[in-house]
């Protein structure tokens, strides 16, 4: 048995130059507040997203015909890991660039592609994910939000919840029931819903830190044209779950607390505490390993393989790592000591948001269940 076959990642020749480009851009326009650099892929800064668009760093792998830049998957990987390691505020465009754009390009009809994809590459169209509902969390196949055909139109009614970025997004890709009376995975479809369509309303949900990142989204008799259907009617489950494997293994699954690790390194330099040095060593070893794992999945995806089990393992290990960092820092650092204000505030911020790391994108239990299935246990 070999659970994770790693092969040499062929990093692009121009990787170093790309890294320099991103570092310069972040140095000039990135986030200065260390607390806001933590978990930065939920921090929306539309202005920063537009700058990335101008620099040709959004939709990097997509066809030129739709505003993309036809660069390789690994070039994109280099760019996103640089952005995340630097804590750049990439939240506004993150979902659109990571999954909605690729999904539209793969399954969308021409009108949908023309309408949304070029705007995404410019950093002008942002997207949100409409999966969860009040009674559909881990058990996603129980979604109730429904769309029915009325002549040439879809009529959408229901509610999504926990929708990250709905308030800054221009469209949602929603998983909805399009066959009345259907059960579970059957009869589901994906619809592209413009957030300004009449009948769509967004209500903020304030999280435990006081921030507004996710929302409730209500659909009340929302009329959409026939071409709002993404892909094939009734194939929504398969389409939506394929999308999940895309989003599981990215560097955002282990880098959310990187800024705290770096603050710890800074602090360890001024202390003379072997326990801190050892903690730095342990966390560095883990970061190095996770980066290899995540990049190796990216390389497989780039070759057209579907390393679903590996991707899921990266999410599980990565989330546990980024979740453990604030706990370990709190256990090791004396916050009463001088010059620990920044370390302390980043740590306490991350202690509060880190429970979400093993919830969003599929909970730890669900993720481990998928790994178990991959092992042949279910």
């Amino acid at each position: 048995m070999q659970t994770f076959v790693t092969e040499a990642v062929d990093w692009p020749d121009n990787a170093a130059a790309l890294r320099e480009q991103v570092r310069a851009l972040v140095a000039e326009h990135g986030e200065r507040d260390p607390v806001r650099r933590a978990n930065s892929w939920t921090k929306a800064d539309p202005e920063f997203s537009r700058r990335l668009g101008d620099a040709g760093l959004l939709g990097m792998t997509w066809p030129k015909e739709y505003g993309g830049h036809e660069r390789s998957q690994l070039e994109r990987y280099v760019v996103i890991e640089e952005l995340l390691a630097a804590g750049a505020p990439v939240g506004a465009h993150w979902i659109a660039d990571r999954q909605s754009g690729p999904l539209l390009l793969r399954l969308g009809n021409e009108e949908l592609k023309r309408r949304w994809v070029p705007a995404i590459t410019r950093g002008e169209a942002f997207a949100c994910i409409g999966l969860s509902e009040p009674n559909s969390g881990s058990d996603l196949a129980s979604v109730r939000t429904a769309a029915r055909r009325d002549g040439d139109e879809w009529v959408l009614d229901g509610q999504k919840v926990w929708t990250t970025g709905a308030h800054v997004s221009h469209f949602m890709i929603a998983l909805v029931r399009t066959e009345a009376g259907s059960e579970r995975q059957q009869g589901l479809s994906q619809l592209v819903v413009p957030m300004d369509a009449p009948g769509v309303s967004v209500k903020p949900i304030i999280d435990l830190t006081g921030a507004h990142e996710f929302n409730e989204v209500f659909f009340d008799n929302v009329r959409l044209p026939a071409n709002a259907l993404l892909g094939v009617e009734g194939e929504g489950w398969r389409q939506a779950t394929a999308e999940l494997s895309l989003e599981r293994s990215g560097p955002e699954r282990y880098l959310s607390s990187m800024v705290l690790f770096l603050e710890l390194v800074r602090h360890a330099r001024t202390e003379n505490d072997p326990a801190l040095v050892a903690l730095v060593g342990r966390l560095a070893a883990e970061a190095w390993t996770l980066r290899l794992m995540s990049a190796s999945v990216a390389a497989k995806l780039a070759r057209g393989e579907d390393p679903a089990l590996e991707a899921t393992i990266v999410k599980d290990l990565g989330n546990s790592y980024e979740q453990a960092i604030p706990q370990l820092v709190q256990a090791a650092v004396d916050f009463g000591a001088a010059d620990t204000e920044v370390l302390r505030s980043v740590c306490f911020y991350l202690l509060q948001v880190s429970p979400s790391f093993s919830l969003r994108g599929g909970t730890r239990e669900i993720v481990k269940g998928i790994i178990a299935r991959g092992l042949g246990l279910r």
Partner: protein
Amino acid sequence: MSESRRMLAEMADPLFAELGPDATGESDGARIDELGLPLLLVPESEGGFGGDWLDALTVFRLAGYHALGPDLPAQIVGRVAEAGSPRQFALMAFARTAQIAGALDAALALSVGYVNERRQFGRPLGKFQAVQQALAGFAGEAAAANCAAVGAAQALDREDAAFEIAAAKLRANRAVEIGTTVAHQVHGAIGFTQEYGLHPLTRRLWQWRSEFGNDAYWSRELGSKVVAAGAVAFWPDLTARTG
């Protein structure tokens, strides 16, 4: 995997499986010598196999997978590094990393196979969610150890691999804890017997975790490097090591 490496694996795998943990006699050693394996890293010009570090990884990992009795990795490393030198210590740390990776995969395979067979409460243990979740965690640790071993081998083929060996041995050491704990837990009492084939793996895993740098040793080594380089250098250094 390259063709020559695949052939190497196809040659070593059945032999190591056959020899297994109990092989310690002279005739067993002779069969390993026959294949030229101790000369794996010796250049072809000097009559060796001319293998690289990914080849070494393949052999070390299989030695771990089958809990091979003779310490073949030590012989292989002994041909290219002076006994007692810092280089030999580092290379042996790499070897143990690869052996840990292999042994964890073997213990995982044994555990998955066992829980799919063994029935309690009218169904295979593998159908119980608690068992599944524990094994999923184990799989993650085994995967991490394997990736770390590959990363260190690649670094050895590229350049000075001090950072990578430290990181890889430390990561693999940490994987031993969850791996051995879960493997024994899901096996119940049978795994605690001399007769059953789990202990040759787990007892070696515990041994290898200590040998050539335990967790404390490598976290100190790696931590001081990272702290000395400073926070600003961490990410650029990390990425410069690969591309």
